């Protein structure tokens, strides 16, 4: 692994009115990492994602991606560089077949430059490319799931659809905002190998979750946020053992095990 970080966030702060949603958060992600960001509700996780991907302007701090200063760039330019994100609240085209949801990212300049999925990016073949991506991410082609209207899909598939929207850009770094939340146990179980597969394919991941068990399994490093402050960082074991984290995040020591 080379030691230059793919993404470097330094001292990012953001206040909404009086609420300090982020105060001086720093982090580094290297190529091939799966970084987990955990924290209780309202701890500033989504705000951090928004600040990195340009959806809100941060008050202070810098964001470097591939050695470029992308602080407060517009989101579409950041995505164009290969840093994209999923949304906690998904709003697909419910009335359209699932695969049609990938037409928008496939229409982007980045997808065109990369020649589409598997290099077959001829004009007019976006539908085929979209279906290939969905198959890649676990939509069974034979069962016609990609052709079903998004409104008829269970949450598990919608989360995959949201992830597929990012993959259509052939990104280098994907930030997933709570892709595990709202999933059933079995849906989650099938999601974990998918994340590992993406990592094998060379996509670096940041997983924002408040579900811990799955995250502890796949993340190689964790960051803990509370009230906009980074209160812990390290491997799963280190984070779980840190007294400070236990107290701030889990309330009391006993509760840790109910979460994990």
């Amino acid at each position: 692994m080379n030691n230059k970080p793919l993404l470097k966030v330094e001292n990012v702060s953001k206040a909404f009115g009086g609420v300090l949603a982020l105060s001086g958060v720093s982090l580094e992600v290297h190529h091939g990492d799966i970084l987990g960001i955990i924290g209780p509700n309202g701890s500033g996780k989504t705000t951090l994602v928004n600040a990195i991907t340009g959806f809100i302007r941060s008050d202070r701090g810098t964001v470097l991606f591939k050695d470029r200063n992308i602080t407060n760039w517009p989101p579409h330019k950041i995505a164009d560089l290969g840093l994209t994100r999923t949304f906690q609240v998904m709003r697909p085209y419910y009335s359209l077949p699932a695969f049609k949801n990938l037409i928008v990212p496939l229409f982007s300049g980045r997808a065109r430059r990369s020649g589409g999925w598997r290099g077959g990016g001829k004009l007019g073949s976006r539908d085929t490319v979209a279906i290939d991506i969905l198959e890649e991410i676990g939509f069974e082609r034979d069962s016609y799931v990609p052709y079903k209207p998004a409104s008829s899909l269970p949450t598990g598939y919608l989360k995959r659809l949201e992830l597929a929207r990012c993959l259509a850009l052939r990104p280098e770094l994907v930030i997933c905002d709570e892709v595990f939340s709202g999933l059933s146990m079995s849906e989650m179980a099938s999601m974990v190998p998918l994340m590992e597969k993406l990592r094998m394919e060379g996509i670096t991941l940041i997983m924002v979750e408040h579900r811990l068990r799955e995250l502890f399994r796949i993340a190689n490093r964790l960051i803990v946020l509370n009230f906009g402050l980074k209160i812990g960082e390290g491997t799963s074991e280190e984070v779980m053992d840190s007294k400070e984290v236990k107290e701030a995040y889990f309330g009391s020591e006993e509760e840790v095990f109910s979460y994990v």
Partner: protein
Amino acid sequence: MANQKKDHRKERLDRGIKVRTDGVYAISHWTEMTYLLAPRALLIGGLLAAPLILSYFPYWQRVLSIICIYALLAIGFDFLANYVGLVSLGGGFYVGVGAYCAALLNSHLGLPPIVTVPLATLIGGIICTILFLPCLPLRGVYFAIVSLMFPLLAARIIEALNIFGGTDGIMGLDGFSSGWVEQYVLVCALLVSLFVLRRLVIEDVGLVFRGVKDNDQAVKASAINITTYKGIAVFISSALGCLGGATLAHIYNWAGLSQFGLDYSIIPIAATVVGGGGTLVGPVIGCILLVWLSEELRDLGTLRIAVYALVLTAFIVFKSEGIMNFATRKYQQFERWVHI
């Protein structure tokens, strides 16, 4: 149900419209083709034949031209509002800009109408788009209000600075070589715009436009600049209005302040409501109805506006989906009485 008979029940079948219009089934038999083509043929044939049919009623020929101008504005409005999410009240501005562009090109450069109309469409569209650029981040009612300021301001500025002929406007413009040219230019422009826009919204780029309307965050996260697409959409919509304005200037041989009038902002919206938003054809039908109605009511004098308002209200209350959505649904349904 009011007309329910004893031991009979009305049964409603929804025809498999997806199959009938999408697959090879659609061209499998002449009845299927007729089913698809008849409504389209009716509209296209009707519009193309209208100037001929109306040749005995010169007054109504002029009304047809006005209908087409409003219809161009209305499909532009429908596209921008229902496919891109920008509710624009700038119709009066587009018409005025188109009219003044055509007038200046004609009076200063001496270009004939057949050149000024396409040029004014293009230049006018560019001018409108550039002026609207700062407003593109606005959403919903904020965009609507700001777009309404444009026609109001433009008229006041021309008046105050006394440019472009001031309150008199630019007079003595060349007319079209004949009424036929005037009407067929407009009818063909309308049909072509309708065809192109209906095509555009079902292409891949149409999904991008709809994304800008429904979920702009996801579009941004998909590495697409939404301002670019909003700009393209405003260009399309305003160019249609400018096309109408340019022909209007040549029809009346005059470009003046009244072409920034609010009628051009409001009637297209009313027509879209009456005809059915999001259908693109509906607003055309709405314009035909509304302009025809307002001509019929001309004798009523001031009562005209009241009747007009009542009709509009009735539509909004009783058929809020609009004529086109209603008709499409009925056309694709099949009702019959069955014995129980």
